[in-house]
């Protein structure tokens, strides 16, 4: 039995006394990336299934929020770098072994595809050129001309042609977006699970779990955003299903840890009686999954529930889940 382990001569900041190399930027980015993956997945999915007329908010406005989330997430990532001026070196190489390299490229592609998507729907989403903010007006005027008070058009011919091309090939774009969204959602989990040095993260189920959680937060935000009752109800149902899947995955994650090697058993103990127990079970399981699950089940039983309540709770749970996983993963280390 080991009585004591003393390490002397090493006091490296952010490494000792326990690893703290990743702060709020990474979990925030993982949350926003998952949210964007969810929003883009549903936008693509409802085009592919031909139900876009029922899901107007999803298709037209969802991707705008998604692109915003990706941009804020990228900003957080940039802040996380200790040498942000060198960030472009991510794009001078492709490294298939490195999840972070995958992530950098997928984020770039997703931003481009969602920007094209937004552009192809911009006239439908915002038929009037009603921008009041001065500098935004000037910025938009670079590519846009105001025809009259009720309509606008692209300033350049090639933009008009490209818009038509994007609109004609909408299904193809939707397929690309669904695939990218799934990769983005899974990647947010794989980024962590690829580190076998961190026992808590080193679980293959983290990929599907983070994807499910991302889809669920995306559905929750769309449920809040939409004014259409049918769309609201649909997302309420989707979210209920995703919550059940998520609980199933979380149970399996802990079962896997408890049936594994000593370090993983100890990692699980931090959540089953250890110092992360209350934070995790209260924020993620009870507030983030069970209560919104019950509320949505009640809504299906025709009770009147304001959707903002389960919606915000799911978003809160999804964000806390990532913050807790990133934080706890760094505290739990190999024993030797």
């Amino acid at each position, binding site marked *: 039995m080991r009585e004591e382990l003393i390490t002397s001569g090493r006091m490296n900041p952010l490494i000792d006394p326990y690893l703290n190399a990743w702060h709020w930027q990474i979990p925030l980015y993982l949350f926003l990336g998952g949210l964007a993956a969810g929003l883009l997945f549903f936008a693509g999915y409802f085009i592919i299934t031909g139900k876009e007329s029922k899901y107007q908010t999803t298709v037209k406005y969802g991707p705008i929020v998604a692109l915003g989330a990706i941009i804020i997430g990228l900003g957080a990532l940039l802040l996380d770098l200790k040498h942000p001026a060198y960030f472009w070196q991510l794009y001078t190489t492709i490294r298939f072994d*490195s999840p972070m390299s995958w992530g950098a490229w997928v984020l770039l592609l997703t931003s481009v595809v969602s920007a094209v998507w937004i552009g192809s729907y911009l006239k439908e989403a915002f038929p009037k050129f009603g921008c009041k903010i001065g500098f935004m007006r000037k910025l938009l005027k670079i590519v846009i001309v105001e025809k009259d008070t009720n309509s606008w058009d692209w300033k350049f011919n090639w933009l008009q042609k490209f818009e038509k091309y994007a609109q004609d090939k909408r299904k193809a774009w939707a397929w690309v977006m669904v695939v990218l969204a799934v990769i983005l959602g899974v990647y947010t989990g794989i980024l962590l699970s690829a580190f076998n*040095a961190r026992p808590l993260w080193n679980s293959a189920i983290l990929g599907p779990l983070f994807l499910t959680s991302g889809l669920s937060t995306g559905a929750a935000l769309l449920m809040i955003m939409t004014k259409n009752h049918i769309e609201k109800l649909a997302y309420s149902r989707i979210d209920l299903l995703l919550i059940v899947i998520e609980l199933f995955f979380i149970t399996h994650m802990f079962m896997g840890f408890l049936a594994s090697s000593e370090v993983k058993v100890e990692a699980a103990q931090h959540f089953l009686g250890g110092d992360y127990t209350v934070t995790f079970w209260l924020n993620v399981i009870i507030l983030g999954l069970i209560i919104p699950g019950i509320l949505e089940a009640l809504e299906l039983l025709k009770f009147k529930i304001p959707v903002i309540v389960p919606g915000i709770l799911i978003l809160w749970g999804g964000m806390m889940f990532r913050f807790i996983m990133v934080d706890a993963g760094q505290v739990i280390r190999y024993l030797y």
Partner: protein
Amino acid sequence: MAIDTKKCVGCSDCVVACQTENNVPHGYSRDWIAETVEGTYPDLAMEIRSERCNHCDNTPCVRTCPTGASHVTEGGIVKVTHEECIGCGACIESCPYDARYFHPDGYVDKCTFCDHRVKNGQDPACVSVCPTHCMYFGDLDDPNSEVSKKVATRKTKVLAPEAGTKPQIFYLI
């Protein structure tokens, strides 16, 4: 590299030698001393180790690096090209030995086995200053090198073998 835990007294000379040789900034270190005590009084066993990057054969740090700054040189030394490092921290997270740290200049730094000395036929600074001669440095692929002979004739262990990194520092026990 092989380190004799029976000879090491934990004097920290290796730590100081490394900091001086490699201009390691104040408050940082590339190597350190670990002391473990096992058992219940009065049956106690103590082990003292000088620890650093294990220059693993299966390198998670090189695998997770998104820019290729982390690499394995010919001869097996794991290094970081400072100009290519963006300071994302992926390699720090991937190291089960916590052997890497953020240099204040914005890149990730670690033990280089003093490759600038090794090129000239010298031992790494930590090995050359050790007052008890508990460290052996050399080519593990050459069966006639001193380090290979030590590893072949003594009982050895590596740190966290279950992490699957195939560490290349052998502790003689």
